[in-house]
């Protein structure tokens, strides 16, 4: 387990102005007033947290750092610890009604929107999942079950990967006879999905963290939209 280094001024290369600005952006989020009320330091959130069992991670540390408005420590946590959270919200059992998990949600969004290097690194391993969600609306595809990607699945992952098509065809619903997507997706659904991404500007977030991923997603979306008659919809 990697120990969390919270030594003061760890990110000395980043100015205090920048650290303050990022925290102001976190506080400006409209959810902010509903996720933090003060901390008794009872530790119930840590006791309930599955990530705290496996990583040097503490939802209480997050709640206390933001309560004290310790922007230097907050920046350190934003560059490391927040990516250890599994976003299960077990910490919502806080007797003070804090939600460290939701504080982290906001901090992650600010980290992504501002293209922090650490956010890019944390999300690197999720590229194919983001690609699947954006292009198909389904998150995990059966063909992710590969020996090199999921060795923890056990030795029979070789057999599953080798005969994936047959395994999928053994499932009763025909809509699950897929390997590249979780299930069959209707063309109309795909086009609606792309139009939603276009209207919400969500692709800008992806462009900030992974330009290569942005390019290939936009390429496919523009092509499909054009085929469906939406020639004027572009993401530039």
């Amino acid at each position, binding site marked *: 387990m990697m120990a969390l280094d919270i030594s003061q001024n760890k990110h000395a290369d980043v100015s205090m102005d920048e650290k303050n600005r990022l925290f102001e952006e976190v506080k400006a989020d409209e959810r902010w007033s509903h996720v933090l009320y003060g901390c008794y330091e009872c530790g119930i959130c840590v006791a309930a947290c599955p990530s705290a069992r496996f990583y040097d991670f503490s939802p209480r540390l997050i709640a206390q750092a933001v309560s004290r408005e310790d922007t230097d420590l907050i920046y350190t946590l934003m560059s490391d610890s927040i990516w250890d959270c599994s976003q299960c919200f077990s910490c919502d059992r806080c007797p003070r009604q804090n939600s460290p998990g939701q504080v982290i949600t906001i901090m992650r969004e600010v980290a992504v929107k501002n293209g922090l290097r650490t956010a890019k690194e944390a999300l690197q391993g999720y590229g*194919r999942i983001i690609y699947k969600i954006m292009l198909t609306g389904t998150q995990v595809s059966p063909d992710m079950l*590969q020996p090199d990607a999921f060795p923890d699945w056990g030795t029979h992952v070789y057999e599953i990967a080798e005969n994936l098509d047959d395994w999928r065809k053994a499932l009763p619903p025909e809509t699950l006879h897929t390997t590249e997507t979780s299930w069959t997706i209707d063309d109309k659904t795909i086009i609606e999905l792309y139009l939603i991404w276009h209207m919400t500007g969500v692709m800008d977030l992806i462009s900030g963290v992974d330009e*290569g*991923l942005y*390019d290939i997603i936009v390429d496919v979306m523009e092509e499909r939209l054009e085929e469906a008659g939406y020639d004027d919809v572009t993401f530039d």
Partner: protein
Amino acid sequence: MAHEKVNGCVILKDLYYNVDNNTWVRIIDDSTVAVGMTDVAQNLAGPLLHAKTKKVGTGRKLGKPIATVESGKYVGPVKSPVTGEITKINDALSSDAGLINKSPYNNGWIVEMKTDDLSADLATMVSGDDAVAAYKEKIERDNIQACEQIEGADTYD
């Protein structure tokens, strides 16, 4: 065909390389080139499941995707090392993307392109001993793990 291995990764000296984008270029005639992923690139991506190339006729600027490759957890673009139009795609990749892993410089080629200005594009790339030196630096800087030997790696000479 002269080649050198850097940390187990094969670099063919007669090809041109865009080291940042990890692609190679083989000159076919004065304006046409074949393009593919390097041994280093296929090694980083892992065993490939899908390789989807753009259609013949697609115009691409240098750095824009000519194909998308997917492995178990990775997806990424193959960025064009030249500016021009795709004239031919490697159809074999649609049923066996693993060709890129097994034979990145030969059977695993990705597209052929008609370039707008080949000499300008080549000026952005490295070849020969310069390519070997550039990859040595990249492999060390990015701490890239040793390549597992590709098919025929010892027969290039």
